[in-house]
């Protein structure tokens, strides 16, 4: 299944690997921060209404 990358296998795989790490980190931090802020806001709204 893996294509034959010839002499440039290291370059191609490292480009895809590094990009995946950067994109994965970006998506992870965006989702986690969104969830945290959403929860904190829900708590603050509940305190206000109480």
């Amino acid at each position, binding site marked *: 299944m893996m294509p034959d990358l010839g002499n440039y296998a290291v370059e*191609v795989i490292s480009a895809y690997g590094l990009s995946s790490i950067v994109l994965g980190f970006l998506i992870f931090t*965006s989702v986690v921060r969104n969830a945290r*802020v959403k929860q904190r806001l829900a708590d*603050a709204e509940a305190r206000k209404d109480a």
Partner: protein
Amino acid sequence: MALTWKLSSYWDKFWHLANPKVFMGWSSRLLPIIIVMAAFCLSTGLIWGFFFTPDDARQGSTVKIIYLHVPAALVAINGYLLMFIGSLFWLIRRQHVSVLIAKATAPIGMAMTAIALLTGAIWGQPMWGTYWVWDPRLTSFFVLFLFYIGYIVLWSAIEDHDTAADLTSILALVGCGFALLSRYAVLFWSQGLHQGTTVTISDGVQQERISDVFFQPLLLSMAGFCLLFLALLLIGTRTELRARRLKMLELREQML
């Protein structure tokens, strides 16, 4: 007269969409659709490009890096232009959602610029014989990366929201020149290693589009990166709007 009235009506509708409450409503409905479309386009484009495209006659298998490098660079440059527009609207109309869109764009743009720089350097070593050269396009792209970092740091360094928004907006306006420069530097600087636009190949006399074998997965990958950018932008802007409301509530609690 009727046209002016119609344009003014569209303009009002546009600003109505930027109302924080209205924004949260339509963005929550749109977000799942964009996420599904982004996942489909990105996975299809990258799998197609990596597994099912042939090697290029001159570049060998390094041509597969194009499916990451070009879309990331596209989003990096246009992301900064969006920051410019958002900042401009803030300075002119004091529109909070527009400046929060600009703020949410910065980390995404910075990550995309990093991917474009990294993949470009990795491709450059076997093709140019060097990871880096102070070529006009590469240099302006690196400066664009520094502007993204500066913008994020400036936001976090200033406590007052409006002052931070004012100063970062000015920085975004200044940096926009580098975003345009990183896109068009190859056109007016003849020296440098970086070639012109990738979608069309020019031999100086004629321009032709790259082969469909490479172009079709590239197009899907570009659409995937743009949709991913849009999804992350909506998530980021929603987070910023919530964070602003949270800060307001916490300040109110402290005063009581």
